[in-house]
């Protein structure tokens, strides 16, 4: 028998810089067509949801279908407010990074509905294990921007004492876990926290986030195994924003199956959601939270969106994808869509929106003024270098006390010698 030689498949995105944007293969089902099952449904009956797309807002800005969370106009306006604030904050911080006021920044432009709607749908006491692109969670939980700015500037009021890269927040008082630079590590930790809550007979649940790219890490799979085996009360989110730095989602296996479909093999229910639809994100999160809270275990939510921002301040996406993609993303943009909805139901106007944007810009500037008064990166230089030896362990161990002495003596000597 003759066999043809094998060949290796290497995934490749359809378009690259210089090509026309082409989203023709993205299937966008109509809003409102997906049924909303009871949140205690057997996972086995949920398989189709891994391939569906839950959408509530239709093209005219109306909320349709069973997944409409039926939020009050006040709640919707609050969501809009948080999203606008998140965006204005991002824009300002990126500008400051460009001006050398800090070393690094990451925006979540186009993904604001995710952090904001999810924080609002969860209970304030639930524990969040985010990646670095869910600053909306903190904004929606009311964490003052000045706290975040202090951390971004590594200034004298930085709650992380200048130790962490900008945006790697840690906010225990806001139920927001310390962000790790190592992708995916928070996912099994979210499951473990949820297991501990169940173990303790608590009522709080956990939620974790990873990007599409990070689903390739072992930690993602550890988390799904544990979540399934122990029926952990956790909401596991995959933010599929199509890109992982320069790598398209197909490199994480997104062409063969949806990210939501990974849940199926683990016997977990999955929801696949229009991530730019505030109402759909809210409704799906609410469903998964209710399921977890009633002891039916974990849900995997794929939030289908687009990373309109560069990966980070160190990245230039023009090198690897058509520049016009973000503008042409078939699911639009979350702030515009919620605004359109509020206008469509007679609860908002262009004028009020413009006033909101101005108000949020001013809010950012006020907070910035306060944060800057405590310094920006290196200006003035942070003044407690000895603190770097703290918190390695609960008590500073002997060898670090010696090293701290050595470092302080060295600084003193250098200052005296004028070096």
């Amino acid at each position, binding site marked *: 028998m003759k066999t043809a030689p094998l060949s*290796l498949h*290497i995934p*490749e995105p359809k378009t*690259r810089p210089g090509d026309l944007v082409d989203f023709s293969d993205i299937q966008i089902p109509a809003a409102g067509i997906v049924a909303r099952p009871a949140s205690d449904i057997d996972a086995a009956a949920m398989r189709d949801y891994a391939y569906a797309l839950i959408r509530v807002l239709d093209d005219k800005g109306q909320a349709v279908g069973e997944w409409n969370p039926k939020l009050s106009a006040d709640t919707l306006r609050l969501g809009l407010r948080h999203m606008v604030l998140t965006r204005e904050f991002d824009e300002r911080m990126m500008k400051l990074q460009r001006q050398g006021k800090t*070393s*690094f920044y990451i925006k979540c432009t186009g993904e604001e509905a995710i952090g904001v709607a999810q924080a609002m749908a969860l209970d304030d006491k639930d524990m969040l294990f985010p990646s670095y692109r869910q600053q909306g969670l903190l904004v929606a939980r009311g964490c003052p921007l000045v706290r975040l700015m202090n951390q971004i500037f*590594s200034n004298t009021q*930085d709650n992380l*004492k*200048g*130790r*962490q*890269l*900008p945006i*790697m927040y840690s906010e225990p008082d806001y139920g927001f876990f310390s962000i*790790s*630079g*190592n*992708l*995916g590590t928070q996912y099994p930790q979210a499951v473990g926290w949820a297991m501990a809550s169940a173990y303790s007979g608590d009522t709080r649940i956990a939620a974790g986030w990873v990007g599409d*790219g*990070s689903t*390739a*890490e*072992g*930690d993602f799979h550890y988390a799904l195994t544990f979540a399934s085996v122990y029926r952990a009360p956790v909401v596991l989110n995959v933010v599929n924003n199509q890109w*992982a*730095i*320069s*790598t398209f989602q197909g*490199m*994480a*296996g997104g062409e063969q199956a949806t990210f939501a479909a990974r849940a199926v093999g683990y016997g977990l229910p999955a929801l696949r959601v229009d991530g730019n639809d505030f109402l759909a994100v809210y409704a799906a999160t609410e469903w998964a939270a209710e399921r977890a809270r009633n002891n039916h275990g974990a849900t995997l939510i794929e939030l289908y969106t687009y990373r309109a921002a560069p990966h980070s301040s*160190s990245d230039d996406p023009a*090198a*690897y994808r058509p520049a016009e993609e973000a503008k042409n993303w078939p699911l639009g943009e979350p702030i515009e869509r919620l605004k359109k909805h509020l206008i469509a139901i007679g609860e908002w106007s262009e004028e009020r929106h413009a006033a909101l944007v101005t108000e949020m810009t001013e809010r950012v500037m006020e907070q910035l003024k306060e944060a800057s008064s405590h310094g920006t*990166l*290196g200006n003035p230089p*942070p003044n407690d*270098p000895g603190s*770097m*030896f703290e918190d*390695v362990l609960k008590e500073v161990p002997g*060898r*670090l006390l010696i*090293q701290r002495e050595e*470092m302080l003596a*060295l*600084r003193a*000597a*250098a200052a005296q010698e004028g*070096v």
Partner: protein
Amino acid sequence: MARMNMIQAINSAMDIAMERDPNVLVFGEDVGYFGGVFRATAGLQKKYGKRRCFDAPISEGGIVGAAVGMGVYGLRPVVEIQFSDYIYPAFDQLVSEAARLRYRSAGGFTAPLTVRTPVGGGIFGGQTHSQSPEAIFTHVCGLTSIMPSNPYDAKGLLLSAIEDDDPVIFFEPKRIYNGPFDGHHDRPLTPWTKHDLGEVPEEYYKIELGKAKIVRPGEKVTVICYGTMVHVCLAAAEESGIDAEVIDLRSLLPLDLDCLVTSVKKTGRCVIVHEATKTCGYGAELVSLIQEHCFYHLEAPIERVTGWDTPYPHAYEWDYFPGPYRVSRAIKKVMEE
């Protein structure tokens, strides 16, 4: 000869290796179309096609595990771990598998792979873009660990690493990708293109693994270092005014012990410098070897200058980084006795 920075020299090594041997292939996160976040693989996909230079899923364990399998098949994979801070998910594949495959199969299976990975701080990258984990790997028998300090060496050593029949970890000090940073962060950096060691032959050449280099001959004290610290130590030697001999290890394992022993026997004094944390760092092994081989020649206790035993603190980067002032004080200190 051409003028190259360290990235270009590393790129040239991979280019030549791919040209010479169809079994050499390059992959890792963002290395394909984009050419790597530090641009080390720029142009390779264009030149050799995406079959031979391609992106990988974000899965360091998967990357190294797949490289082991490819090595077993007979290929010579060269993989990039984007930052050495992200090498830990690959730890099991490196330590339990790549490092021990030859031994446990009595030579029946081998994994000739090269793992390239940027190390070190000085770029305000915080604790997950600044680590120097080399000693974690030099502790593992079966792994070769290399760290060049300039473009010329980087190219010659990388070609040797790729041709080596055992797994090699090739640590790239990212702070000196563009120029020989000597720790004076407030002064402009001289680019490699204006430096002698930025003169790199365009053609194939190799530098033998396991050979240190005396980068500054001297009589009074031996300063042992590698990577970015080579340039810090050269500056420190100059500033101390002491006739120090500075040795660039280039290869941590195998180690050029003869070179060290000859030098320390001559000078009778020794300072060991690395950016990694102190406790159980690679310097500890060096101290131990030197006392074993040079005890009766030593005139003073050996000094170590290293990163402190803490994670790399973002805002206090320059209090953490072992700079030339600290090294020159250590040089003077060993001269006192």
